[in-house]
């Protein structure tokens, strides 16, 4: 499968990435190569085969519902790039 520059731009937006113009051509070519190789999967006969996530032995993992102390905001927010009191600060969303 070939991938176009505009498709790469659309996917990058969905992934919240911004590819620099100088890197775009190269990225499109590399992704095209990789996706072309991945097309070999089309030759595999997967009729009636289950997804591996379904085929794995899945058990519910349960534990007692015991109340434990939260580490608290000073731990949770310790690495925040911007914070105020016990809150994360982000650029204004409502304009």
């Amino acid at each position, binding site marked *: 499968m070939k*991938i176009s520059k505009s*498709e*790469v731009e659309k*996917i*990058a*937006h*969905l*992934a*919240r*990435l*911004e*590819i*620099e113009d100088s*890197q775009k051509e190269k*990225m499109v070519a*590399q*992704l095209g*190569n*990789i*996706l072309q*190789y*991945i*097309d*070999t*999967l*089309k*030759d*595999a006969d*997967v009729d009636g*085969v*289950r*997804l*591996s*996530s379904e*085929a*794995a032995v899945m058990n519910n*993992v349960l*534990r007692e519902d015991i109340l434990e102390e939260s*580490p608290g905001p000073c*731990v*949770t927010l*310790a*690495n*925040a*790039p*911007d914070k105020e009191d016990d809150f*994360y600060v*982000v*650029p*204004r*969303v409502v304009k």
Partner: protein
Amino acid sequence: MEYHEFTIGNAIERLTRHEISSFDLTSALFSRIEKYEDRIGAFITLDKEQALLQAQKADQDIAAGRISALTGIPLALKDILCTKGLKTTCGSRILENFVPQYDGTVVSKLKEKGAVIIGKTNLDEFAMGSSTENSSYKITKNPWNPEYVPGGSSGGSAAAVAARFCCAALGTDTGGSIRQPASHCGVVGIKPTYGRVSRFGLVSYASSLDQIGPITRDVRDAAILLNAISGNDKLDSTSARVAVPDFTKAMDEFEKGSLKGMKAGIPKEYLSAEGIDPEVEKVFMHAKEVLTDLGVEIKEISLPHTAYVVAAYYIIAPCEASSNLARYDGVKYGFRDRSSEDLIEMYKKTKSRGFGLEVQRRIIIGTYALSAGYYDAYYGRASKVRTLITKDFSNAFETCDFILSPVAPAPAFKIGEKTDDPLTMYLTDIFTLSANMAGIPGISVPAGYSSKGLPIGIQMMARKFDEMSLLRAGYGFERNIGLSQKFPDL
């Protein structure tokens, strides 16, 4: 014997007999690091101050008779394992200043057992790569020849062990990232069964494939370290509720019965794979003879879906990565780009400036493969192929105890040789990806050298939770392969 020559096994013996102190051992290793690290670049962060304090505490414990499995043993950790109070970067700018507020489960286990953590080793960013060239901080060099890569993504850990900067190290393996660098650096590496070791505190790349494991100087050390880190953990619901045997018993089993009665399978699809280097083939053929002489019965087996392994992996891993790495949004932790007033713009600039190109490439592949209209053709199909690959292995293990193969199709390549061609780099993972896809354990053991003097390992893979067979066969092999030189001169 000089300090840097001690394996974990040797050091435990000498420490408990009070012949050496952990403080002297740790100090000697730091002197060695200070002398040679510029040439190798194995570490992102060194923690001499804390390490020496831990070593002193270990010496007090030993003096008081409080001896645990790893008391006083200097170890290094791949910088993708969370260490409380010690920077954990994942080799990425986006986590340049990230200081975890807790220890990962493997880290707490090592600390509880008295280990001395000397520092955090270099890696391909978020463990995405096969050469340790994708780190945002430095390129790690192969201690056997600094013009060559050490392999990856746990290249810093493998190089640190080969350079004898530490007794041993932990790495992580999502598609070969322990076994391949171990092979390229001439050391031992084990990827345990999926679920054998808790992943809590391992920064996620591809959660259904990631596993933590030992990188060591010999097979016995791998068993000692695996003993220390294995087991169910309430903080990781995918960690298995399966009994953990004493893995060092595998050595006793070999001493008792050599490898008699063991059956090894060689997949015919592997040896007919394109691009196997004749030197790798030669080492492999010799390895086969050594195992035969030890009593292993060798037979040809078939893994019919081998041709699809790389393609299926390079869908599944990027899909999981695109989801896992969405968390780096510049809000909760890590780098934030401050040039934009708009929230979406802030996300985009943060990610694009924080992540390197290989990480962005994999996020885009994953996002594409999971996007509307493509899910069935890519992720769905790859997941079904994964089921077929897993079945190939369970069929194979009906007739053999372990599967023998090369680790990588060629010895380590030169730094810079493959950086512009990601697909060629992906294809070098052909022999290691399957163990992650099928969730089975694999070991890489040194087996020989190329004509340029670069190490070449062999791989053995076994049934789920049968690391014992790998350690027994690996130990027997190591004892009888007769390598001319075990470690590089720096």
